[in-house]
């Protein structure tokens, strides 16, 4: 096994030679590429990458340009996970058969997908990959909406969000269904490692990615990815929105080891009211009308309940 990259602090991390390139076509201020950079820079090992169809994919491999400095594959919307699983199977086969061109390398197999590709259309494919025990990592870039196709709701879209297929209107407050708890579901596959991460907490992210790359078996990562276009905030505020997401506990940061050991990895010193998170985004603007203000209260209650649930699981080691 190769040595883990040492990243003591941000200065040291900044000596990384990125393997993801600019002049991709992601929106200015897109969090996707911040997450991708933190994931790829967490290791110096060779990478075999995949992406499901979505913003990241359509913006980083538009012929005749590629933004990837490692081998990368895209097949379709639902199968980024299985693409990398197939490559990993071939790696194992060629290793056994002594046919690897560079047998001394220690490649990491990583697939990226948006929440549409992961919570919805590719859910079964990911579940299969997790269940079969491939030595791979799946990273969700969770922006809670089908952003690439213009803002339709996914099963990651939270209650009250204005999406094009769950629009807020005269008699509607937008999305009515609660967000799917995908980390719990993937953790329940009893995989070695599942975690939720956020790009603002880069050290927590890098630690989790490195842990995930070192364990033997499938790893699932859900990364919050604030979307300037669909959440409707100024591109410069991406990191501010990420801070609000983690510090309101709307996106709590935690990990699940072997399906039954939950650790909360970030406890904000000052927990911010959820209302501030909602107020910072155009997709929730209508919730501040008098008739919908009860939803803001309910939001806070849900977030509190989820936080209490995570704390109970952590304490009970389940």
């Amino acid at each position, binding site marked *: 096994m190769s040595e883990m990259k040492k990243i003591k602090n941000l200065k040291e991390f900044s000596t990384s030679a990125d393997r993801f390139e600019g002049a991709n076509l992601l929106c200015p201020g897109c969090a996707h590429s911040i997450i991708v950079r933190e994931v790829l820079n967490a290791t110096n090992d060779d990478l075999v990458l995949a992406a499901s169809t979505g913003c990241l994919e359509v913006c980083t491999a538009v012929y005749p*340009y590629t933004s990837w400095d490692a081998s990368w594959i895209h097949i379709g919307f639902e199968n980024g996970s299985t693409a990398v699983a197939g490559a990993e199977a071939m790696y194992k086969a060629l290793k056994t058969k002594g046919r690897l061109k560079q047998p001394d390398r220690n490649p990491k197999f990583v697939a990226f997908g948006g929440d549409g590709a992961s919570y919805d259309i590719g859910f079964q494919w990911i579940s299969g990959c997790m269940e079969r025990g491939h030595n791979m990592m799946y990273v969700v870039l969770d922006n809670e909406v089908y952003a690439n196709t213009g803002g339709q709701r996914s099963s990651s879209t939270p209650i009250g969000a204005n999406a094009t297929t769950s629009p807020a209107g005269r008699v509607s407050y937008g999305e009515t269904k609660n967000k799917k708890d995908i980390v719990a579901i993937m953790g329940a596959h009893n995989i070695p490692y599942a975690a939720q991460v956020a790009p603002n907490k880069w050290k927590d992210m890098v630690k989790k990615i490195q842990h995930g790359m070192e364990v033997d078996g499938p790893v699932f990562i859900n990364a919050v990815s604030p979307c300037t276009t669909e959440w409707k905030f100024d591109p410069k505020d991406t990191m501010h929105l990420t801070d609000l997401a983690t510090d309101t506990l709307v996106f709590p940061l935690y990990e699940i080891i072997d399906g039954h050991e939950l650790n909360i990895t970030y406890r904000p010193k000052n927990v911010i009211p959820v209302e501030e998170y909602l107020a910072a985004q155009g997709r929730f603007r209508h919730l501040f009308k008098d008739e919908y203000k009860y939803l803001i209260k309910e939001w806070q209650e849900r977030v509190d309940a989820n936080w209490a649930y995570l704390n109970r699981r952590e304490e009970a080691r389940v």
Partner: protein
Amino acid sequence: MANTGWDEFEIGAMLRTFEGEAGDIAGTLQEDRNYTQNSSFSASVADWRIEKPVFNKDFCIDCQFCWIYCPDISIISRDKKMIGIDMDHCKGCGICVEVCPTNPKSLLMFPEQAEEEVEIANWPAKETKEK
């Protein structure tokens, strides 16, 4: 890259990032890599910008917040020091300015046409927080 005819490219719409052998890419900085014309590193999105960041090294503490949170690999840090901005790849989102912790900020947004020397000469003074 020029639009070529159907018989003039590799099969499978396959693209290569580097000319020849890549070597230790994770250990090779961008300026030392042998990119092909197909790497988006060879392309530019400078024309996306309405505003551009200007870097004033006098106030920079090399915290590297701008480096880590730049979505476009446009903060050039070498040997743990911030040395400039890659204006071919910067889309002008302004995140680097927002996350800059110095006072005054070491990065500020200006209209694309602004002259860097002029803006640095007129850099705002340290803000005093109201108590």
